[in-house]
Every structure is written in C-alpha cells, then in structure tokens.
C-alpha cells in the first residue's frame, strides 16, 4: 500500500506534533489501565505512563488503543509545514471523526493562529490500514489532499529514526478502477528555538535517573570529550592535506591556504592578561564556595554527633544525680 510519493511536496514536521501525539497515546493508555488490571499495577500508574503501558500490555495482552487527531499547519507552495495538532474522538460506529468538535476546535485555533489550516490527521499504529482511508476521505472536504501522520507507539530500542510516517493519498488505477491509496513520503524535522530547548531538555533527562553528581559530571565530560574528538579529527585531516601539499603531491591551492592561515590566526583563542585574571578569580570563587559548603556540612554533622552524645550520656548523669538523694 505504501510506495514512495510522487507529488513533489516537501514535508516539514515540528517536534511539538510528535510530542503531542505520543502524549495523547500515553494518556489514553494509562487511563485505560485501572478498570482492566489488578491493584499491583495501579500503583505503577503514577510513574512513567509509557513504561507501565508496556507492563500492562504484557500482563493484560491487549493492543494499545488507537488515538486520533488533527494536524494543522501552513502550506506555502510546495512546502507543507506541520506545526501543531489537537485530539479528536473517533466514532467507531460511524467510522468517522467527530465532525462538530473538529469544526469548533478549528474555529478556536483560527482565532489564535490565523495562518494555520487543517492539513490532515494523525493516528497511532504500526501500519496504515484500510479503514483509515474512510477517515481520510472524510477530511477531503476540508483539505483536498490531506496528510496522514502515523506514529508507531511500540518502543524499539534498535531503531534510530523516529517511528513517524507521513502518508499522502494518490489516485492510482488498480484493476481498472481508480482508487485512492496511501503513499508514504519523506519528511524533515524542523525546529523552532523553543522546541529545540525542550527537546534538548528531554534528551538529557536520562542521567538524572542515576541522580548522583558523579554520573552528571561524567555525562558532561563525555559530551565535551566527543566534541573535542571531532575537532581533532578534522584538524588532523587538514594537517595531512597541508603536509601532502608541501611535499608537492597536490598543487598549491591558494584559496584554501589563505583560509587555513586565517583559521590558525584565531589561535590561541584566549590568552590576554585580563582573561587569566577573570579565570583565576572565578576558579578561586568556586573552590571557596565548595570549601564553605563542606565546612557547613561538617559542622552540622558534628552538631548532630554532639547532640546524640549528650542524649546518651546525660541520662546517665541525671540518674546518678537522683540516686545520690536515695
């Protein structure tokens, strides 16, 4: 059903849409849990929804429910940029999405984002299905070529690409009857600055599970290490090239030599006296604060120890005092 698209439209997907869809899916999964599973699983509902979704899927052996919604964005010429999305209820009897709600939501969004149009719809699952075509056709009166975003909620640790597929509908002639089928198209992820910050934040959440300062330090240092390694590799390539040029294996390319010389001119990156002063001052400040914090820690521990000591021995001396009267 899914071959590659030939319509020539380029799709740009914002991370907000992916986060919205996965959030919707997670919420529905965790809301479904209490009526189905035992009490032991309800305590795990308070933690990571996706995690316990997997647990309940294994224990209850039901497939995760499909969620539906609408995607909105802007279409400029041949570029379709999907900015945002909202949820919709699916009516399994009529096999269509809740139309009145969709229109109401569309009006509300139009007030806030006047440029956004309904570009299509989304759903979760592993592959596009026949029944999806119904919904697709239903949306065709709003947008003559809606786009179908499919998110695969199963977690596959070996997979590197995001499990999102974008499908368009195309009219193909199959067995003499023109039919609409889904064809998948490629997309790029486009990020606004605010989205970049939040995605970065989420990506760095893993180390704080371990929590201790040492693992965070190690993570930070590892990041720096890989960055410097990349720089090192590239500088080595330049070095080899220049050595070969000096030996005469390559013809002297003046423009490149000029660029390299201007690059080397930027080293040493920072060496003025003022930098040394500021750097040492900040270094000393950090050391001082660490020392002070350690002092405070030690003195509070000492205080606690003295209190415990006094409690233990005081009782003894008071009793000693009373027995003197007897």
């Amino acid at each position: 059903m899914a071959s590659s698209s030939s319509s020539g439209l380029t799709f740009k997907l914002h991370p907000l849409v992916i986060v919205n869809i996965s959030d919707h899916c997670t919420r529905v999964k965790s809301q479904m849990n209490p009526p189905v599973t035992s009490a032991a699983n309800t305590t795990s509902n308070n933690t990571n929804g996706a995690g316990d979704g997997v647990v309940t899927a294994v224990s209850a052996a039901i497939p995760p429910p499909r969620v539906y919604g609408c995607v909105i964005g802007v279409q400029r010429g041949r570029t379709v940029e999907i900015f945002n999305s909202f949820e919709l209820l699916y009516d399994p009897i009529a096999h269509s999405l809740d139309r009145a709600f969709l229109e109401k939501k569309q009006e509300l969004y139009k007030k806030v984002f006047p440029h956004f149009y309904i570009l299509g719809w989304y759903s979760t699952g592993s592959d596009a299905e026949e029944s999806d075509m119904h919904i697709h056709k239903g949306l065709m009166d709003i947008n003559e070529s809606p786009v179908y975003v499919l998110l695969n909620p199963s977690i596959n640790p070996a997979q590197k690409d995001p499990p999102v597929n974008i499908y368009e509908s195309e009219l193909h002639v199959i067995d003499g009857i023109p039919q609409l089928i889904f064809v998948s198209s490629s997309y790029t992820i486009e990020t606004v600055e605010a989205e970049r910050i939040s995605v970065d934040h989420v990506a760095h959440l893993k180390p704080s599970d371990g929590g201790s300062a040492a693992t965070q330090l190690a993570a930070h240092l590892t990041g720096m290490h890989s960055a410097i390694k990349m720089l090192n590799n590239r500088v080595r390539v330049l070095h080899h090239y220049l050595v070969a040029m000096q030996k005469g294996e390559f013809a002297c390319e003046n423009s490149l030599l000029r660029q390299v010389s201007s690059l080397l001119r930027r080293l040493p990156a920072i060496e003025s006296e003022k930098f040394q002063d500021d750097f040492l001052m900040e270094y000393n400040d950090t050391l001082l604060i660490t020392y002070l914090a350690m002092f405070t820690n030690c003195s509070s521990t000492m205080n606690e120890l003295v209190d415990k000591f006094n409690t233990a021995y005081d009782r003894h001396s008071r009793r000693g005092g009373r027995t003197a009267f007897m």
Partner: protein
Amino acid sequence: MDIEQKQAELIDHFVKKASALKGTILDPVIIEATSHPSLFAFSEILAVPSVVELGGTENSGYLDVLRLFAHGTWTDYKNNAGCLPELIPDQVLKLKQLTVLTLAETNKVLPYDQLMQELDVTNVRELEDFLINECMYAGIVRGKLDQLRRCFEVQFAAGRDLRPGQLGNMLQTLSNWLATSENLLVSIQEKIKWADTMSELDKKHRKDVEDRVEDVKKSLSLKLHTVSRPTLTSEGTRRSTLSLVE
C-alpha cells in the same frame, strides 16, 4: 570563508584577463585588480606566466606593485616609494587594508598607537572610521574596539597570500594544536574515570558504614534482652545503660 567565495569569481576573471594579454598592456589590468574593492588575494594573478614575464622587462615596476600587494604593507611602500609607480587612492586604501591584515597576523590585540603609526593616521577618530568602514564592513576582519584601553581586539582576520616560508610555520602550528587537543582528550578521559571511581568508593564507604550500624544495632538489641530482667532499681538501670553505652 565567505570572503574566499566572493573573491573566487574575481580571481578567475582577472586570471583570464591577464593570461590573454602581454607586456605593458597588463599594467592597467594590474591597477584594476589592485584597486578592486573586494579583491584581497593576488597570488593567483602572480602565478600567471605573462605576469611573471614582466619581471624581466623594464616594466617590472608593476610586478613589484603586485608583489607588494600580495605580501607587503604600507610601510614597505613608503620605504620603496622611489622605485615603485604612483598608487591611485583606491590602491592606497587597499594597501592599508592589507596592512591591517598583516598586523592581525602576529598579534590578536592591536594597540591604537601601533595602528596609527602603520597606517599614517593622525587621530583616533579617523582610525576608528577606517577600521569600521573599510575593514569590518568589508568583512576582512571581525573584532572589538576597546576605547578605554585604546586597542583593537581581533577575533577573525582573513588570510593574506602566503609567502613560501609560511607553509612550514602553519604546519608547525597545526601539529601543536593536534598534540594539545590529544593531551586534552586523554586528561578528560582520566577525569571521567576518576569521577566514576570516586563515586564507587563513596558508595562502598556508605554501604560499609550502614552495615556497621546494622551490626551494632543487632548487638545492642541482644544486650537489652539479656539485661531486661533485673532492672527494677535505678541502680540497676544505671549499670545497664553504662554497659550499653560501652
């Protein structure tokens, strides 16, 4: 890097022109090349055979001018003004821009006094105007002007044409850079290992202390059970608390 791109077309254009002509007709081409506002690279033109030929003839003045523009500064021109042809104002401006580039080669912080001396400018205002308008807006240098300390901090300067000996220096600098970054990588890895080891040690220590606390608690509860019966008198409780504390 964008300067190189801007210059690439100009260089091609002038090289083509120069290779098509010979002799004295090359002079106006050289003047045009050296006064063009966006062209700062002359080694390609210097390499064109018909330009090299000029060196032998009496007209070698223009070849010297071209060489001056490729490697020299305004001070060089003043010293040799006798044997070089007159420069038009555009060329003078270009030569001064190239002088700034050469100065930026050696120092990152250029004092105003040195700049004023090299460029034959008498007051600071003129110097700053020159730096801002001719150098920074042209894109050949990027930096900060520090008026309080009267210096110009260069963050980026476009490269000038290389003299033959400079390639060796560049290779030296590159290999130093590589060595330093490799050392840095090794020390970062050591730090990571250190951080991991210290956290391991800390956890072990904590666990040890907690185990000892557990052991002492257990021994205490045993002692309490054995001492609990005869402690009705205060004397007895005093003795038992003494032994517990010990």
